[in-house]
């Protein structure tokens, strides 16, 4: 008996992992749902950037009507789109028609020499522009302003939340699909379970990273073209760290999602085991939005592996982290990642062939 008849050479672990990853990516790219949702995401990001650009460009002014005898009062004010009118009644009619937000007319009885006429509420923006503000001396002019910090917090938080839940869900679905269609038994008769798991995690990680990098590229190029370079300044280094943290954070979550999904046999049941993980990826988002100005919470977040991908870049952006802190946090994250892969692989291996009812966690861990 020629038990060595096949001409096949053995498959190395790396080749096996890559084959699985390749299939994973290929099947995703051919899924209409995935392509369309990704396209919408990119178009949305692009639209946001361009819209931001228009806003910046068109903020040339609050439209106001100014009578000829009052023009000297607004000569120095920035941010006004001035329409000159002959007299007070002409100005009032423009305000009533809504063509302008307010009118400025000369008024000898006013201490300032003019009066602002508005429709139903005081035009705050205009009043701020006209107000005589005392000069302010900043002691720490480099510190990021609150609004920008908030935007960055939402940015990091939402990108991590979106990508992690999108691809966490994807990998969970694909694990259950293999179980539900029973193809998994055929697969693991050909390759070791770990190779299958690694291939799936790596395939989805590549897709997720590609999506993140394209989003980042859209943001950076878009902001540059539309001249919003201010927002970009100071974001470069945190974004680079974000990418690194995201990579390991994603592998961590992907392994756990795969393990959790392997415990059920039907798509409908995925939620029963992946909900705790979904909570885990929502937490950093809400924490960073509510506590982006709280150094203690951010400090803790930046070291907890599940929130570090959001917390550490945020602290770097705010200038609160020492140079070594991201490195320490990264080591913690990578160590957790390795542990998650080992535990995840164990659960995955023990649960794959158990069809029907949900596998209990203790059974999945003990085999």
């Amino acid at each position: 008996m020629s038990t060595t008849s096949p001409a096949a050479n053995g498959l190395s672990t790396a080749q096996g992992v890559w084959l699985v990853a390749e299939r994973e990516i290929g099947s995703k790219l051919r899924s209409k749902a995935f392509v369309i949702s990704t396209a919408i995401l990119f178009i949305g990001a692009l639209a946001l950037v361009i819209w931001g650009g228009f806003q910046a460009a068109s903020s040339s002014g609050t439209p106001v009507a100014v009578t000829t005898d009052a023009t000297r009062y607004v000569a120095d004010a920035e941010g006004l789109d001035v329409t000159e009118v002959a007299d007070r009644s002409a100005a009032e009619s423009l305000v009533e028609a809504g063509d302008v937000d307010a009118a400025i007319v000369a008024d000898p009885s006013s201490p300032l020499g003019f009066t602002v006429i508005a429709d139903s509420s005081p035009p705050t923006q205009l009043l701020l522009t006209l107000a005589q503000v005392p000069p302010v001396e900043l002691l720490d002019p480099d510190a990021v302003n609150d609004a920008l910090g908030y935007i960055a917090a939402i940015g990091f938080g939402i990108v991590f939340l979106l990508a992690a839940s999108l691809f966490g869900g994807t990998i969970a679905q694909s694990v259950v699909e293999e179980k539900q269609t029973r193809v998994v038994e055929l697969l693991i008769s050909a390759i070791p379970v770990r190779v299958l798991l690694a291939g799936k995690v790596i395939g989805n990680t590549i897709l997720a990273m590609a999506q993140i990098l394209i989003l980042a590229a859209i943001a950076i190029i878009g902001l540059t073209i539309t001249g919003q370079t201010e927002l970009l300044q100071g974001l470069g280094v945190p974004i680079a760290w974000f990418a690194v943290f995201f990579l390991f954070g994603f592998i961590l979550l992907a392994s756990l999602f795969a393990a959790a999904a392997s415990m059920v046999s039907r798509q409908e049941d995925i939620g029963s085991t992946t909900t705790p993980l979904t909570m885990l990826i929502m937490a950093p988002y809400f924490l960073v939005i509510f506590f982006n100005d709280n150094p203690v919470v951010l400090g803790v977040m930046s070291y907890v592996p599940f929130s570090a991908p959001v917390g550490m870049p945020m602290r770097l952006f705010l200038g609160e982290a020492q140079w070594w802190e991201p490195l320490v946090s990264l080591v913690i994250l990578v160590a957790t990642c390795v542990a998650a892969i080992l535990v995840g692989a164990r659960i995955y291996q023990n649960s794959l062939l158990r069809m029907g009812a949900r596998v209990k966690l203790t059974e999945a861990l003990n085999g």
Partner: protein
Amino acid sequence: MLELRGITKSYGGRRVLDDVSFDVRPGRLTGFVGGNGAGKTTTMRIVLGVLAKDAGTVTLDGAEVTASHRRYFGYMPEERGLYPKMKVLEHIVYLARLHGFSKADATARATDLLEQLGLGERLNDNVETLSLGNQQRAQIAAALVHDPSVLILDEPFSGLDPLAVDVVAGVLQQRAAQGAAVLFSSHQLDVVERLCDDLVIIANGTIRAAGARDRLRDEHSSRRFELVSAGDAGWLRDEPGVEVLEFDGGYAVFDADSDETAQRVLRRAVAQGDVASFAPQHPTLAQIFKEVIQ
């Protein structure tokens, strides 16, 4: 030769396989028969390494089967399944590549095999668009594409129409003729009986009978004969040492207490009139099965 020795497996204290030992010889079809829950699927999964055993050994030509042997194994799980959204050819190529074939090699093999199985027209259709019977054929291609020298097929005939059964049976016989060791389980005892060279019967996790089909048949056959003659065979009832089981004019089925008795009956039958047939009746597999699992 694939040898199983002393395989045991328990799930949470319940022993599902107990000291399971049998051989699967190259060049032969081995039928694996047993009731639901007898342990067939568990045994096959252990052979494939898909499931871990508690004790015992599985050896191939004397060497313990390890992960690196897997590329010599072809498997058709009881629970059929392929990726529904993959194209048939692409899917089979993927599986061949997982077994270590290069892309070009895998494509050539998969195309040949699928054409041989009558799926040549459907190569670029998604698996989910195939009829159940055609999906089954694709599943068989998945088990065979890497030219395995050991084939383990769990219920390969279930859900097939009689024509498809013949196609699959033909493919299995061809593989065995080429030297592969083939182990297949089936509920369809008539198909097993017709096809297999060797038999393994399992019940409640223990092997009740194993060996060449003909030897098992001999072991379990009593001296039962069937007589078809022209005249009335009523005289049979009065013959000493004969127990008539069925009787209808010239037709009778009877047990004889010895070969001499049987020969005496034959001589008398010929003397009484024309004898169309006189033959020992072999027990069917179904009969043997019922007997050994009790």
